[in-house]
């Protein structure tokens, strides 16, 4: 599990992993509705993370716990 931060930009959601100073844009998010938000995140650098589906946060950025799915980024 890793602490991550998701913020929104003009190009969509941006993923940030403070521990490794890794910034990447989120290419797809599994659930993106006001009631259910989260699931699998696919990043533009090839990585994927999983966050528990939840109610869409009222304000971004938000810090969350995420699980790494695909081993990427060397």
């Amino acid at each position: 599990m890793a602490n991550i931060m998701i913020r929104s930009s003009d190009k969509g959601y941006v993923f940030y992993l403070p521990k490794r100073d890794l910034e990447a844009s989120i290419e797809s998010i599994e659930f993106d509705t006001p009631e259910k938000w989260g699931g699998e995140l696919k990043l533009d650098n090839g990585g994927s993370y999983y966050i528990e589906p939840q109610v869409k946060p009222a304000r971004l950025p938000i810090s969350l716990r995420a699980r790494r799915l695909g081993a990427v980024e060397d």
Partner: protein
Amino acid sequence: MAALTREETEALIQEVLEVYPDKAKKDRAKHLMVNDKELESSKKCITSNRKSLPGVMTMRGCAYAGSKGVVWGPIKDMISISHGPIGCGQYARGGRRNYYVGTTGVDTFCEMNFTSDFQEKDIVFGGDKKLAKLINEIELLFPLNKGISIQSECPVGLIGDDIEAVAKKAAAQINKPVVPVRCEGFRGVSQSLGHHIANDSVRDWIISNRDGQAFEKTPYDVAILGDYNIGGDAWASRILLEEMGLRVVAQWSGDGTLAEMENTPNVKLNLLHCYRSMNYISRHMEEKYGIPWLEYNFFGPTKIAESLRKIASYFDDRIKEGAERVIEKYTPAMNEVIAKFKPRLKGKKVMLYVGGLRPRHVVGAYEDLGMEVVGTGYEFAHNDDYDRTIKDMGEATLIYDDATGHELDEFVKAMKPDLIGSGIKEKYVFHKMGFPFRQMHSWDYSGPYHGYDGFAVFAKDMDLTLNNPCWKLIQAPWTKPAVEAVQEAA
């Protein structure tokens, strides 16, 4: 048009890599690239923020340098204790020329070196008692300090001192913030982690100190983040923001105070100059206080105008008009500067190798003078920095990450730039080789370079360096014929 074509640049990289053993060659190859503007992400062509290879000459610093030297040091009314042996603090003192207003030793302390001066017995028995005593002494001798930060040097982490406990006890005793910073030099691969650790300690110990306290806000409050007032940079930036109608509440951290930092959560917008060293705290303030942040660039009139308009777009029409007014006011003066220096500098080639921001930020200023940046590189940037660099640099230019002494020498010999901008560690090598050189970390004891006023100084300095006749007279000592040396000796 770059100095070399893509194929030539690629061949140059291969040639430079030839001298390394296979394993080192494979590793270093990942840190060198030829720019391709089509790329969206730097991920596939350059690797950054990795451990330097043992045996090569790296130009990097340590985590302590990032925390004490960059982020915490310039806060003028706080005392930063270099906790550990005396050398780290003493030899780094005053190097960055963070200007400030105040009486040193009375109410401001940046130029002084406070250290616990570790001796053998402190390593054996621990330095906590000494630290507690030191804080009391500081309080007695310098009562106008507003707070203390404890900057750990390597031994503190190695022997496992509990500086947090000392800090908490001392803070209660003297009733001021005492911030323990775990920035031991061995942490991380470069000074970059020091910035991160320093930002985290600001987040944990400073930023929420005044939450809930009354603060007289205006709708035009901003904070300047990541400007260390080198040679007066932050002042040259601040006057532009104030002229366009904004109120600058805080400067982080050049000529900044603890009170300013504590008041920053009240601003409307955080203006981030050095992205690499302060994006962490900006992200935190965005999440906790909902303050948006914006990267801006105050090098060169083109980028300044772009940045002023971008900043104004976050505010109402009054500020937007203010931005236009400021741009209009300074444009004639800037045109004069360009008219004077551009003919002398036009078409000249520049190579840069600086820290974590300037390799891309100063490109615009050089282009305003008709110069071309043919190679650039960072000591300690991360991938997001390279993502931003690719867009700013010309096609087929050379980009190098954590370049070694050998690589820099060879690149310069092959590309023969008209000007090199880098740090003090590279300066004298290139001087001896007869290349015009500017020290771009602390502006070669000049400055400011930010803002409109700074651009005039920048243009003049580049001209003075580049067109100085002395460079043609220099012959590198190692290229002199051996006979001469014998005769001289005799």
